[in-house]
């Protein structure tokens, strides 16, 4: 398909999570008549149930629209919807890379929010043209003038003449389209140069295999071409190329400046990694496009089926999710307490939560998850170095010469009134102050070096609650450093429960041990004997709680009319016991394992 590059516009939408990003996307699709009204349903682009519910986009989506502008010419508009969370920053970056412009949605009632800023700066950093629009002008509390001024002050882009719109009510959507045509530059690139296509996302399709979502930067691609992934080196024969409408529409050819998908009988998304460059195997480009990173999991946890017999089903489910998520890793592991399960690796905590939720919702599992862990570098006395992502595998104390933990460089952007609160939080989390600078007169950027294992325990939640949601946060790996780390074990009636062990900083061990012991005391039901719960470092007990022995389990009355109900209760009692995990002599309900993951009050 040929279409003059001058009449192509590739853009994305940047918005605070609930600022109507999907609503605007739907309106644009609507206004350009891309989708028949019959097929329209709200928030067309957020396809996963989970995405709709959380109001966040996990996978990138895209849609091609044709729009005849006021100048009488027809334009091809490619909207790329980006993921929206710090765990997926890399994906966001790649998606932005595929665009020349970004529509920035600003809420006329709220002004600019921190979460939006992080992505705006990312877009500015990629030299994207920002097209601000002021949304929700239909609300009585809307203050478009004040908000427009705020955008100019904070972001430093012209905004006073930005379209005033209501995505919900469909007001002034036409004006947004005009701005996109006028302000977003046409793509550059050479159709006749060797193929360079940026993979900005990938998706597993049951019929087509793993699809590469691409922006063609140079050259062209069509069915029958042999393509090569420049970083992984894999080669494939193209079986289909197409565009998003937002469904799949096969086309003859994709050429420089265009956005679409390539299907090439690729078995899993891990063979078509985000950020990789696709070239033509016979006529290859000299070099891949810049910016590729092989993203590695940095948070691990054990995932076990609550019902041990569902182990194989859980593996099938993880494999299915893995088809579509190159960042998810999993390997079988066994736990004395939990039986057979998987050690899973994630990009971050949100990624972990999303996978757990999808397993529970889409695959209907009851899961037990262990406390998240980072990867520790353990130097042994015999000179070996081992990487440990599971506290249970930590060598014995006398075999450890040195323990090193992953460090990140964290950047926290915040309105200035929360600087004190954030500094307190970072100190609590063993952060090392690096720098503070002002982004403008009201906003500061704080830089800290922090151990990653402090961040994976409710740092994000604490940050949000202490700054009423205004602070945004991003981090990047910054190597390893020696830490005074200990393995904290929990003993139930004298028997250690491997699934509860964590690696923590020595100074935090006491508070953590006490807190978990208290949680366990409340979560473990009384049993026929008293259960001491002990937190221990090595052989040393640092906290103790007790679950008192059960004193009675007998119903006072049972006559003719009570028998059926009573029998059901006894059946339930037996069922409940069967679902409990045996740790030594103690019966542990699944909830007890979950309780210790949520340590905040």
């Amino acid at each position, binding site marked *: 398909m040929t279409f003059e590059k001058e009449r192509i516009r590739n853009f994305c939408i940047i918005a605070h999570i609930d600022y109507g990003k999907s609503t605007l996307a739907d309106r644009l699709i609507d206004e350009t008549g891309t989708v028949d009204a019959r097929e329209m349903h709200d928030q067309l682009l957020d396809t996963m149930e989970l995405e709709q519910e959380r109001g966040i986009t996990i996978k990138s989506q895209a849609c091609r629209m044709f729009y005849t502008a006021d100048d009488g010419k027809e334009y091809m508009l490619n909207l790329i919807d980006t993921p929206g969370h710090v765990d997926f920053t890399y994906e966001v970056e790649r998606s932005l890379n595929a665009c020349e412009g970004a529509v920035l949605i600003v809420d006329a009632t709220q002004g600019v929010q921190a979460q939006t800023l992080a992505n705006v700066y990312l877009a500015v950093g990629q030299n994207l043209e920002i097209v601000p629009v002021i949304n929700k002008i239909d609300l009585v509390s809307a203050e478009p003038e004040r908000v427009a001024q705020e955008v100019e002050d904070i972001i430093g882009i012209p905004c006073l003449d930005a379209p005033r719109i209501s995505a919900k009510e469909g007001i002034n959507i036409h004006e947004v389209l005009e701005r996109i045509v006028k302000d977003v530059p046409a793509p550059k690139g050479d159709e006749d140069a060797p193929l360079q296509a940026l993979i900005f996302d990938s998706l597993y399709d049951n019929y087509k295999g793993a699809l590469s979502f691409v922006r063609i930067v140079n050259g062209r691609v069509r069915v029958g071409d042999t393509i090569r992934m420049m970083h992984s080196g894999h080669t494939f024969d193209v079986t289909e190329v197409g565009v998003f409408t937002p469904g799949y529409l096969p086309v003859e050819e994709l050429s420089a400046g265009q956005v679409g998908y390539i299907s090439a009988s690729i078995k899993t998304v891990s063979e078509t990694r985000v950020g990789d460059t696709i070239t033509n195997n016979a006529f290859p480009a000299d070099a891949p496009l810049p910016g590729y990173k092989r993203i590695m999991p940095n948070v691990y946890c054990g995932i076990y089926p609550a019902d041990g017999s569902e182990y194989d089903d859980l593996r099938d489910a993880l494999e299915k999710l893995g088809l579509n998520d190159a960042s998810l890793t999993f390997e079988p592991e066994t736990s004395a307490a939990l039986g057979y399960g998987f050690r899973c690796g994630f990009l971050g905590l949100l990624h972990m939560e999303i996978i757990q939720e999808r397993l529970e919702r889409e695959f209907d599992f009851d899961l037990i998850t262990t406390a998240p862990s980072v990867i520790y570098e353990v130097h042994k006395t015999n000179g070996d170095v081992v990487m440990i992502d599971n506290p249970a595998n930590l060598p014995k104390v006398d075999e450890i010469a040195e323990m090193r933990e992953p460090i990140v460089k964290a950047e926290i952007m915040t309105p200035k009134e929360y600087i004190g609160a954030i500094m307190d939080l970072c100190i609590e989390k063993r952060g090392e102050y690096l720098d503070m600078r002002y982004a403008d007169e009201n906003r500061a950027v704080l830089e800290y070096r922090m151990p990653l294992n402090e961040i994976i325990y409710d740092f994000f939640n604490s940050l949000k609650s202490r700054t009423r949601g205004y602070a945004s946060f991003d981090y990047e790996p910054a190597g390893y450093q020696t830490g005074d780390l200990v393995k904290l074990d929990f003993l139930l009636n004298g028997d250690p429960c491997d699934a509860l062990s964590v690696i923590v900083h020595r100074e935090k061990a006491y508070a953590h041990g006490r807190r978990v012991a208290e949680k366990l005391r409340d979560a473990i039901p009384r049993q026929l004997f008293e259960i001491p719960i002990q937190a221990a470092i090595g052989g040393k007990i640092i906290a103790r709680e007790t679950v008192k022995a059960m004193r009675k389990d007998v119903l006072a009355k*049972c006559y*003719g*009319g009570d*028998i*059926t109900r009573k029998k059901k209760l006894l059946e339930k009692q037996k069922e409940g016991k069967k679902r409990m995990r045996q740790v030594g002599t103690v019966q542990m309900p699944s909830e007890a394992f979950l309780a210790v993951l949520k340590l905040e009050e």
Partner: protein
Amino acid sequence: MTGLYLHIPFCAQKCAYCDFVSYGGRESLLPSYLSALKREAETYRGEKIGTVFFGGGTPSLMSEKQIEDLCAFVRDCFDLAPDVEWTMEANPASVTKEKMLAALSGGVNRVSLGAQSLSDDVLAFLGRAHTRAQLETAVEAVKTAGFDKWNLDLITALPGQTAEAWGNTLKEAIAFAPTHISCYSLICDPQTPLGRMAAKGEIVLPDDEQERAMVHLTEQTLARAGYEQYEISNFALPGHACRHNINYWECGDYIGLGCAAHSLFRGARKRNTPSLPRYLTAADPTEETQTLSDRDKREERVFLGLRMNRGVDIARFERDFALDFHAFYASALQTNLDRGFLEEAEGFLRLTARGRDFCDTVAAEFMETA
């Protein structure tokens, strides 16, 4: 022998802890209710009956005439055994000597008095319709009418109750010289007024330790006074255990008549509608019928049998189910014998004194869940 239960779902007022099907202040419906009851009974005309129980609700709300009439109907409709045990529940507030005489001459030979407490404060708190003085009058009426078998119902483990106060209640109860005493630990169903008060923290129930202390005190005190415990909550002078209730725990047949009544008859459990209007108008008041499988029967035989001090009759079990009891329950038996919760003697499997505190734990382990 089959038991016969007739439910009288009317009370002068509803008690604060009551989760039974009973209607307060609707006695005007009694005549039509009794007609419906007879209509239902007709479907069982001629059945051989070993025990009869008028329960409630408050059967003593019936007038002398209604009592006479219902008794006559029961004698006419059913084939009563010569040694039939025939109990009528009575609330002290509605007991009169005349009603007692009417019952006795109608064939009733056992009365169960719902005393619940002997203190006016506690009675008021429980929402009972009677006073201590009325209880004394009622006991007198029962005795002078000539009943030689009668029960006193008591509730223990009440909010704020001390072991000492409960000990005194027991002593006073024994002084009335009933032949049978039932002592129930208070069950606070969340749907009842007491349950709601407990949920809101307005009352504090005894904890498990305190409750057990009172229960153990009950067992000791009554044993010393000659009352043998024969079920978790039931005590009787020798020869005075309630045969009608034992029949439930031995999984015998029983016909339950009336609103919300349950039957177990010829292998099927039947539950009547709990709705009074529906019971009065429906041609067939049955709401649910369930045919018991062998597994149901086995499970009920064990969990009900264990409630009795005598225990589960092993030979009868093996005969009825053609199973080797010890092999069939090997693991549950071993676990609970080891814990000291069970013992086996004279062909019966029964709970030990300690095991009685954990009756449900033991019973659950005998359930055959897949």
